[in-house]
């Protein structure tokens, strides 16, 4: 569970709540409890999305949403330690001895990479295959980010549309002047929902997806480097120092492998 995302959204909403409550008390919420505003903003945004993207990608939105909420469990330390272990084994018993180790590997990308080494593929082939896959993973991530970006762009616009709609309707029934402020507030609440969801929800989520994507891609870059180094029969200590270069100093210190004197 990504606490930052959840906390951010909840606290943000709470701030708005407190602001309204503090200013007007409970009756301040009246203009916000407005079904029409909600419909036009959410409905309009979602429909614009359907026009923009193929249906399959829009439905995939919920899977992507899950990604925003969950925290990254991939452990960089584990990857480095695994490669050092493999390098050690390959140096003593050859590549074929890695076959059993590979079977118990959890990371799929790592597993396939090392399997290529065991199968005796040459470096260019391995590099080509793994980098191509990385490229496609990057592209798929971009789609998710793009969708949330679009949502963040459409929502405020539809909020404004809702306000304008409300104002038009208000203007056509100006006979009851006492109702004007109330109707105006209703109209403006649409803008609030639109801008609020756009800038508190959708755009930040797009940003979070971008960060998650970068984290995941870094891991995969480390895996590619590890696989290629493994194939050259590099010494475990060199493997360790080479892969540690990808990590920040605090993570580096956490890695405890017994490679002194290799």
């Amino acid at each position, binding site marked *: 569970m990504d606490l930052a995302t959840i906390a951010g959204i909840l606290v943000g909403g709470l701030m708005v709540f407190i602001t309204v409550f503090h200013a007007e008390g409970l009756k301040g919420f009246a203009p916000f409890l407005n079904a029409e505003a909600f419909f036009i903003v959410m409905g309009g945004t979602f429909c614009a999305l359907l026009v923009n993207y193929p249906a399959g990608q829009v439905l995939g939105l919920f899977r992507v949403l899950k990604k925003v909420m969950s925290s990254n469990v991939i452990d960089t330390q584990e990857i480095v330690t695994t490669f050092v272990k493999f390098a050690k084994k390959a140096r003593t018993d050859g590549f074929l001895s890695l076959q059993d180790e590979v079977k118990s590997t959890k990371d799929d990308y790592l597993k396939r990479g090392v399997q290529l080494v065991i199968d005796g593929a040459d470096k260019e082939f391995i590099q080509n295959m793994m980098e191509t896959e990385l490229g496609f993973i990057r592209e798929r991530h971009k789609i998710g980010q793009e969708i949330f970006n679009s949502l963040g762009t459409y929502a405020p616009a539809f909020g404004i549309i809702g306000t304008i709609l409300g104002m038009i309707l208000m203007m056509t029934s100006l006979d009851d002047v006492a109702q004007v402020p109330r109707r105006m507030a209703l109209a403006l609440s649409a803008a609030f929902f639109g801008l609020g969801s756009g800038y508190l929800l959708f755009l930040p989520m797009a940003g979070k997806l971008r960060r998650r994507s970068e984290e995941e891609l870094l891991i995969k870059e480390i895996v590619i480097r590890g696989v290629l180094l493994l194939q050259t*029969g590099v010494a475990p200590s060199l493997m360790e120092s080479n892969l540690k270069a990808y990590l920040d100093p605090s993570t580096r210190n956490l890695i405890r492998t017994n490679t002194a004197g290799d």
Partner: protein
Amino acid sequence: MIRVKRLNGVEFYLNSELIEQVEATPDTVITLTTGNNIVVQESVDEVVRRVIDYRRRVYEERQAAIVDLAKRNG
């Protein structure tokens, strides 16, 4: 060109002119000048022996052809 066998048993011919270094890791890893790395089943000594045999054969055939030509032209 020397004949070598990959780890998965597939045999192929490798252009020995491209060989930069051969190392035992303990599996034999041949590094080419192109930057590519190839892993083969033959031992390091065997690979070197095959390269020498190949060059010797090419040289011998060349010598034979020259001698042959010289004989024919008197």
